[in-house]
């Protein structure tokens, strides 16, 4: 308990650093580009447009309001890939700094996932444009959206911490992870309806693939205008918590050895 309190105090002392690192990431992302922050909104819109054209002409799915369906899945999944990929390299990318100054190492992972979250908020501007353009009914249930975002954030942070510490010892992870996320993408109903899969597979995916759970919750709120079922919310928080515990535990256990490997 005493240990926890001390850790919390250290984190509190370094909150300014997290803030500065997040600001740095966001400032540098679009520095010297002509349209700047507008890209955060433009990029998902253009990507969605391409996918809508591809999937409404070449492969047709019977989904109502396909643009909105697509952009929800695409944006949330993108957040997951971006944040975990950034987290994966967060320790090795800052190795020169970690050798010179003492900073709690998880700060770098935390700030990477958090700056991805800020990007997600920008991208949600694009979502909003699509919602308005396709005349989605604004409902009071949309107030539930922040809860879903927090669920995803916790999941990504926990998973990111795990990946960050593992990547220090196994550099190969960087290369294999790209393949993993691609496979993961096809196992997540982003551009196809979940119902298209056999029923058993549906159940397995719904339980084992948290991204599927989060995206479905989001779609229920926005497209169907109702609260997601309580079971999936509990499981969504639960799996986020499990990953958070695994991530924190493995990270803290190995962090003193990082310096010898970076």
């Amino acid at each position, binding site marked *: 308990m005493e240990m926890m309190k001390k850790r919390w105090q250290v984190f509190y002392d370094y909150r*300014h*650093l997290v803030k500065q690192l997040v600001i740095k990431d966001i400032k540098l992302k679009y520095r010297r580009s002509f349209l700047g922050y507008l890209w955060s909104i433009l990029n998902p819109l253009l990507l969605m447009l391409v996918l809508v054209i591809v999937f409404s002409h070449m492969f047709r799915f019977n989904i109502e309001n396909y643009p909105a369906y697509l952009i929800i899945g695409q944006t949330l999944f993108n957040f997951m890939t971006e944040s975990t990929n950034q987290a994966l390299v967060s320790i090795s990318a800052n190795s020169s700094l*970690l050798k*010179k*100054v*003492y900073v709690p190492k998880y700060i770098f992972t935390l700030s990477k996932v958090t700056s991805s979250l800020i990007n997600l908020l920008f991208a949600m501007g694009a979502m909003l444009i699509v919602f308005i353009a396709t005349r989605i009914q604004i409902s009071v249930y949309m107030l539930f959206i922040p809860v879903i975002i927090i669920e995803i954030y916790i999941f990504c942070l926990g998973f990111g911490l795990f990946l960050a510490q593992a990547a220090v010892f196994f550099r190969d992870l960087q290369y294999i992870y790209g393949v993993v996320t691609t496979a993961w993408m096809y196992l997540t109903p982003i551009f196809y309806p979940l119902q298209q899969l056999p029923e058993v597979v549906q159940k397995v995916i719904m339980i084992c693939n948290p991204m599927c759970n989060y995206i479905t919750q989001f779609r229920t709120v926005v497209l169907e205008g109702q609260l997601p079922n309580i079971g999936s919310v509990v499981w969504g928080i639960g799996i986020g918590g499990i990953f958070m515990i695994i991530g924190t535990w493995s990270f803290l256990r190995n962090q003193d050895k990082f310096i010898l490997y970076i």
Partner: protein
Amino acid sequence: MENPNYIIDVVDATVRFNKATERVDSMKEYVIKLLKKELMYQEFLALKNINFKVKQGESWGLVGTNGSGKSTLLKLICGILKPYKGSVTVKGSMAPLIELGAGFDGELTARENIFLNGALLGHSEKYMKEHFEEIVEFAELQEFMDMPIKNYSSGMSARLGFAVATMARPDILICDEVLSVGDYKFQEKCEKRMQEMLQKGTTLLYVSHSKEAVEKICEKALWLDKGEIKMCGDAKEVCAKYMGQ
């Protein structure tokens, strides 16, 4: 066991590094080595059983040849490295200057970097805003504040780094041969600031290859050789022995 008088207390500390991995070329070799338990890294002890105690307000110079463990000892005190054996206790705030401007990001401007580097040392944005002018003035870089750091010369970024790190008046200041890039005038200015800080009770650990600098700034000195303490005591005596070997 803790002695309240010591601000830095290193007890019987050993630091172990992995020198390099052994080359394992084939799967067969890998399995054989694994079974014979030879698949270990070559060990290398950078510091061996070091005992080092510093009281508040003392100034210590660290001397020794390259690779003798000076920087390793500083990193150990900063908390970057953890001892393999033994313990390290440090009380009070620290300004680590293992390398000046270690937290600078080349793409950001000097202004943004001051805030980033300040945050690395644990200062809030508000605090940095209050001391911003002071930093810029000390570094004498008023005209270059909105230039990306990647376009700075090494001397310029060293100035900025020193200005940020010493602005806060920490309890312990750690300098690792960082002032050598600055010009003569700036070196003098830095020395003056270090003297000022010493008078206010800051504890100083200073690594330098210049005998004059150590004798001028430090009262005491520690001579490291191949990870072991060769001599420890008055700065003049230690320097004379070190130079005379």
